[in-house]
């Protein structure tokens, strides 16, 4: 993976010093909260319901074992012993004190990490394919481009105060696992007919209140022009994106208002001036960065599955895990392993400090010391020898990370929800847990097969609800009740689609029953091995809608303990969430 040189190190160090002084000025009231807000956000610090939340950048989801040990240290020293992996391949800590944050950033800098631009109205951390470099269907490794873009976007002086946040995703595989169609800018690294490398550029996709699939504005942009072309996009957006209404400020609204053709024309016109200028990427720089993403020392292995097969035959749990959590690797004898962070009773994406240590050890022992975070909030060991799978599985299972549910019903994506987030209308995590409990039966999950349930506590769609096969959105509270809207038919990947809302919303305790009914329709209507999403596409939303609303929906029994009580920890913190 990429390693900092003296320049990267120096820039991150100076950032820590700058931020440390900003915190000092905030604590001494030289800075008002309003002035401090974008500064702390651009260092990843949110003010949430109970405490500050710090979101740390994990560029394109790639971590070393040394880095994850540092995250474990941060969880223990500054938080409550756990962290939370996000849908943008980052990690966030939920119980942070403002006074500690400069030290946390200094700790991060010591292992070549930072929290730069993980929030705020700027270009955010760039996300990519979690299987980059190892996927069997990969055409070009997107990671060097993502890293080069990380440099270009870091503290870009002109684009630090955009109308709204700006997210870039990049993929280089046949199957798009980076969801480039729902990003402000989506890049697909491709080869043209002459074998030259370039990008297909999409602009103006996004979720939130107005989910839009991003249109293509350039079919083939030669790789050298990556930064100048994006600069042109950014400049058009910075000047003309709406600033009068937060909900209409994303670039997708501008693209829609101008029309794709006119937007593209403006970008091209803007680009003419800077095209081929000094901002153009050089072969030398690309090669320098690429050397960090060369193949690890793979052994020449002759795949021999005899041991695995016999172990599978005697151990159903392992067989299920092999089926769902182990993916094909392009090198013979190796496998990609997904460690599930979706265990019943645990908040999706949560990892304890102890688990982080275990994962770091697993990475060192079985996967060249590296680890990836997926947008579905799971972890990936990308280079595991097939002959190590049994040992690895045993350790993962003993530490609660081997639920054989990747891509299944209980592999739910959720946002943190109202328990943590000041924007959310409803709780998300307890609902995910409710769903996990209701559909805990593995045979049933495997029978249902591939399906994605996504939950967001509000319209902002951090939990990717518009593109969930079943998407659940928390809507405004009526008398402090929680109401959930259910949509069907969303998906991401090469054929992204936005789900359709099936009708009036439901209470917390009705949602599992609603999902059950949706699944009944699927089981009734599916043809052979058809996935849930394929059935929806074939028969439409109507049969689902009819069945769900055909009769009263039984609510799950009310349980007191589904309302998690948090101990407010930080009464003494001077700058504290207004909602608390």
């Amino acid at each position, binding site marked *: 993976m990429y390693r900092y040189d003296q320049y*990267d190190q120096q820039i991150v160090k*100076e950032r820590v010093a700058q931020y440390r002084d900003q915190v000092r000025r905030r604590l001494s009231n030289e800075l008002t909260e309003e002035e401090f807000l974008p500064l702390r956000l651009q260092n990843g610090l949110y003010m949430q319901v109970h405490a500050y939340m710090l979101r740390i950048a994990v560029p394109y989801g790639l971590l070393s074992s040394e880095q994850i040990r540092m995250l474990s240290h941060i969880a223990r020293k500054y938080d409550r012993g756990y962290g939370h992996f996000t849908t943008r391949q980052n990690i966030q800590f939920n119980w942070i004190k403002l006074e500690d944050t400069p030290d946390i950033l200094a700790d991060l800098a010591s292992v070549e990490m930072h929290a730069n631009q993980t929030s705020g109205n700027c270009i955010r951390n760039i996300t990519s394919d979690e299987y980059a470099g190892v996927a069997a269907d990969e055409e070009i490794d997107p990671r060097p481009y993502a890293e080069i873009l990380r440099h270009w976007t870091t503290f*870009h002086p002109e684009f630090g105060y955009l109308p709204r946040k700006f997210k870039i995703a990049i993929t280089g595989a046949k199957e798009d696992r980076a969801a480039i169609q729902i990003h402000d800018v989506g890049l697909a690294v491709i080869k043209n007919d002459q074998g030259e490398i370039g990008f297909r550029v999409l602009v103006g996709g996004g979720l939130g209140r107005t989910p839009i699939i991003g249109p293509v504005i350039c079919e083939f942009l030669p790789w050298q022009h990556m930064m100048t072309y994006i600069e042109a996009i950014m400049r058009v957006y910075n000047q003309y994106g709406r600033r009068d209404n937060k909900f209409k400020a994303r670039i997708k609204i501008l693209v829609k208002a101008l029309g794709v053709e006119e937007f593209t024309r403006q970008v091209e016109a803007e680009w003419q001036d800077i095209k081929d200028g000094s901002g153009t990427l050089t072969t030398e720089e690309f090669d320098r960065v690429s050397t960090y993403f060369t193949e690890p020392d793979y052994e020449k292995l002759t795949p021999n599955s005899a041991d695995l097969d016999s172990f599978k035959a005697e151990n159903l749990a392992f067989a299920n895990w092999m089926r769902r959590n182990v993916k094909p690797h392009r090198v013979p004898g190796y496998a990609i392993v997904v460690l599930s962070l979706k265990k019943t009773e645990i908040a999706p994406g949560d990892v304890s400090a102890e688990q982080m240590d275990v994962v770091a050890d697993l990475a060192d022992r079985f996967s060249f010391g590296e680890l990836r975070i997926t947008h579905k909030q799971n972890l990936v060991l990308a280079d595991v020898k097939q002959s190590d799978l049994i040992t690895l599985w045993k350790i993962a299972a003993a530490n609660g990370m081997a639920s054989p549910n990747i891509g299944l019903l209980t592999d739910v994506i959720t946002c943190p929800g109202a328990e943590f987030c000041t924007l959310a209308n409803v709780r998300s995590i307890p609902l995910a847990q409710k769903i996990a409990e209701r559909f805990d039966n593995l045979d049933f999950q495997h029978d249902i097969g591939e399906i994605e349930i996504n939950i967001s506590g509000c319209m902002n769609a951090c939990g990717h609800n518009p593109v969930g096969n079943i998407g659940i959105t928390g809507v405004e509270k009526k008398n402090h009740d929680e109401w959930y809207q259910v949509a069907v038919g969303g998906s991401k990947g090469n054929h992204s689609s936005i789900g359709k809302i099936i009708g009036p919303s439901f209470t917390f305790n009705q949602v599992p029953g609603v999902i059950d009914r949706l699944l009944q329709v699927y089981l009734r209507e599916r043809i052979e091995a058809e996935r849930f999403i394929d059935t929806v596409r074939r028969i439409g939303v109507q049969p689902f809608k009819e069945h769900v609303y055909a009769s009263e929906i039984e609510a799950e029994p009310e349980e007191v303990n589904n309302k998690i009580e948090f101990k407010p920890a930080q009464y003494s913190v001077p700058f504290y969430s207004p909602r608390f």
Partner: protein
Amino acid sequence: MIIKNKAIVEDEWVVLRLAEDEQPEAVAIAAGKVIVPLKVWFAQRDELQDRADLGVWIASDERPEVLKDDIDKFNIIAVDFPKFSDGRGYSIAYNLRARLGYTGELRAIGDVLRDQLFYMQRVGFDAFAPRADRSIQDALKGLFDFSEVYQISVDQKLPLFRRVKRTENVATK
């Protein structure tokens, strides 16, 4: 006082802001060094164009290109930041410098605060009028937050990768 060329200096200019009931074509321009709104410049161009001691300021929702033919007439142009979080001024500055070739003083006015100065100087501002209720000595420090930058802008014509030899050696901690 303002910050100019990284030093605190006396400010000789007055920024004219129109009151709500004042019209661009009717407002009286006092003698001396005045920076007038862009609207006023265009409304009174005939009378104003021979004044040597005149500057113009651009609001964040105005376009710098409208000054294309007038750019040589000014030794001082200001860009207004109505809120420090309104980032349009950065692109206005970039366009003035990079597109229109403006070389005179480019001043940031309005809600100008220490923590934005570093980015502002990178996109071509060389003068800053920090908000009056803040320490100007403190604001000056904002220009020195970073000693190295990755990307090109007005201040830096070459990206880091063209400027220095970036080796594959891992950084020493």
